[in-house]
């Protein structure tokens, strides 16, 4: 009965030839690339190869960017009709679609995520975000935010490394649609697609200074947050830094939106569609290497089906392909940085120490680069650190519950409130659970689904405000955003 050869997939590498990475980059200020003074390397986390030297923006650079953004706002962008602003955004969307493959390859090289994800998820969603928001630019009076909503001015935007281009789209598109200009800082470890985006702005003939991109590290971010010439701060990142920002802007008049961490409960009821549920669990925590703020990192299994689900989950995990992100058949890629890998290893060790039972499928991990095998911890309870703290890696904590009420209590028993998952074939239970859960995004019989029309954001310590949809516009318009 045995075959004499298993069906091994030969390497199916995507070609790198489509991207041209410069050996050194500066900043994008006032519509032009300007040289930086200090530089640091950005690497490919799958190979540790240095991809390029990136500029570290200091005070002068940030000042120049804010000045350019202010000038563009005052003299051009705020004077332009929504109709014309929208057309620039449409151009950007269309060019992103045209250069989609280039963006996907670059994203994978810089971030470590599988090329299939960049190609099929990140880049198409990013382009869609621009397309959607382009259509709002001349329809703001219909957004339910007043008959004549006004932009805030200059927005300072700081984005994370887990979905670099997509997070850029989530920030830049609504800001521009609403009439603001921006100074954006991509994450330290993933600046390349943002710098390519600057080229797209040039190709779209976006007026100089409407979008400015400064690269750097935490110090650059602090300069932006504290800059008096900025009217609004938008930040996506850890809750810890989110709190620092909240304190920093407290004495100012700056508006702030924050999109922070999570420890989402993924709740599986006994009447869940089992095979699709297992897919959803895997997708919920191993998609994007678990570097997802809304990851389903706490699996809450109804005790009566726990054994069956775990058995199927483990079998399914055996089939996860971890490896070269540039291979089209890779499911899970590299951990984004040495630092993040260290955190994941540390917290996993905590899980062991706390008495949870660790399990991973056998995984051949490459010798170079940063890698962590998909891992589950069973026997976890609410009192475990690994049930409480965000690991931000491919590590799933598995807990059980007896009744729907208990599931909700456990799910809500966290300072976070970004997302949650519900698996059940009973509609009334799904709706009941979604009503009870204190989370900003709830997925039923699915997970990690994003759309420009669908507002995203958290309750409690998962942040302030929403991105996407009509609700997401509120962050960038006067009178209805937080003051």
């Amino acid at each position, binding site marked *: 009965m045995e075959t004499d050869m298993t069906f091994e997939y030969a390497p199916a590498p995507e070609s790198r030839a489509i991207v041209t990475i410069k050996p050194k980059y500066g900043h994008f200020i006032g519509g032009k690339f300007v040289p930086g003074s200090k530089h640091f390397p950005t690497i490919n986390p799958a190979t540790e190869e240095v991809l390029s030297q990136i500029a570290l923006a200091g005070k002068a650079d940030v000042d120049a960017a804010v000045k350019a953004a202010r000038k563009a706002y005052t003299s051009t962008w705020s004077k332009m009709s929504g*109709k014309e602003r*929208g*057309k620039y955004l*449409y151009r950007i969307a269309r060019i992103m679609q045209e250069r989609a493959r280039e963006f996907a390859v670059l994203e994978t090289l810089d971030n470590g995520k599988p090329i299939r994800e960049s190609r099929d998820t990140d880049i198409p969603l990013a382009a*869609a975000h621009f*397309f*959607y928001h*382009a*259509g*709002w*630019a*001349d*329809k703001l009076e*219909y957004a*339910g935010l007043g008959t004549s909503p006004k932009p805030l001015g200059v927005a300072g935007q700081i984005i994370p490394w887990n979905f670099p281009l997509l997070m850029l789209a989530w920030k830049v598109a609504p800001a521009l649609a609403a009439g603001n200009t921006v100074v954006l800082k991509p994450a330290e470890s993933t600046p390349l697609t943002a710098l390519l985006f600057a080229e797209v702005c040039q190709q779209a003939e976006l007026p100089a200074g409407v979008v400015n991109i400064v690269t750097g590290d935490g110090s650059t971010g602090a300069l932006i947050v504290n800059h008096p010439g900025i009217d609004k701060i938008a930040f996506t990142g850890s809750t810890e830094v989110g709190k620092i920002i909240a304190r920093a802007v407290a004495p100012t008049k700056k508006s702030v939106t924050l999109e922070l961490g999570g420890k989402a409960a993924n709740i599986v009821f006994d009447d869940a569609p089992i095979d699709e549920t297992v897919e959803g669990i895997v997708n919920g925590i191993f998609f994007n290497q678990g570097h997802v703020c809304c990851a389903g990192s706490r699996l809450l299994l109804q005790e009566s089906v726990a054994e069956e689900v775990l058995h199927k989950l483990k079998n399914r995990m055996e089939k996860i392909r971890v490896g070269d992100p540039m291979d089209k058949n890779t499911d899970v890629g590299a951990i984004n940085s040495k630092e993040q890998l260290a955190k994941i290893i540390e917290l996993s060790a905590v899980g062991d120490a706390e008495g949870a039972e660790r399990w991973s499928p056998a995984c051949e991990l490459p010798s170079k680069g940063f890698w962590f095998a998909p891992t589950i911890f069973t026997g976890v309870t609410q009192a475990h650190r690994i049930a409480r703290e965000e690991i931000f890696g491919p590590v799933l904590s598995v807990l059980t519950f007896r009744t*729907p*009420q208990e599931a909700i209590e456990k799910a809500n028993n966290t300072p976070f409130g970004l997302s949650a998952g519900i698996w059940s074939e009973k*509609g*009334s*239970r799904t*709706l*009941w659970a979604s*009503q009870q859960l204190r989370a900003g995004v709830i997925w039923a019989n699915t997970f990690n689904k994003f759309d*420009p*029309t669908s507002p995203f954001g958290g309750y409690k310590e998962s942040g302030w405000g929403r991105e996407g*949809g*009509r609700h997401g516009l509120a962050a960038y318009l006067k009178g209805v955003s937080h003051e």
Partner: protein
Amino acid sequence: MSNRIDVKKTYKLFINGAFPRTESGRTYEVKNAKGVFIANPCLASRKDLREAVVAARAAHNGWNKATAYNRGQILYRIAEMLEGRRAQFVEEIVAVTGATKVKAEKEVTESIDRLVWYAGWTDKIASLAGSTNPVAGPFYNFTIPESMGVVAAIAPESPSLLGLVDCIAPIITSGNTVIVLASTKAPLSALTFAEVLATSDLPAGVVNILTGKKDEIALWMASHMDIDALDISGLPSKKHADIKAAGAENLKRIYSYKSADPGRITAFMEAKTVWHPIGV
């Protein structure tokens, strides 16, 4: 001066993504503002209308099920194609209506921008026209706006291009399919516009364009039992009563407009409200 004889265009109907002649064989003369002959567009027959309705009905399911994003991209593509051919449209409007070049440019520009405006509505109308409703009971209650189906429309006599765009775009934005009767005196822009549609990835049958006599076609449209709604913006007010009476046979929704307005989108949508209990 060249002695080259130019190749004049034959203007045909646009039905189901193709360009057939009218099955009746009838045509009429279109002359330019100076009274010089330009073309013999078709006088569409009742059978042509019937074929168009069949095509529109068949196309409705797919167009309606397409994502709003997809419909938006197609509408935007129509704008791209129109922008690329603006010179031809300007020339045609000047030739047929005698308008000045400046006025014609303005009309073509507005038509392109109007398409872009509607392209941006496809994925927003549901957020505005839909709702979740806080009923007094343990029910999740939501209202979704949905396209109606097949809409027939009479485009205004003038402006011949912008009026047509203002007619078609709001109808198809939400997923309806349409059969539109172009301006009688100035039908050529509509038929050239059909060529733009044919190169925009618009599925066959979503838009069908007829030319001919308003009075007879309007009445056939009003009495056709497989048409769900009518836009009679292009019909003079005094004719409305008869059309509404004829349309009552299958309770067509019949509307008329004077300008662009997102209300034109929702007018051709139905509101569906769903109740679902909330409970363990």
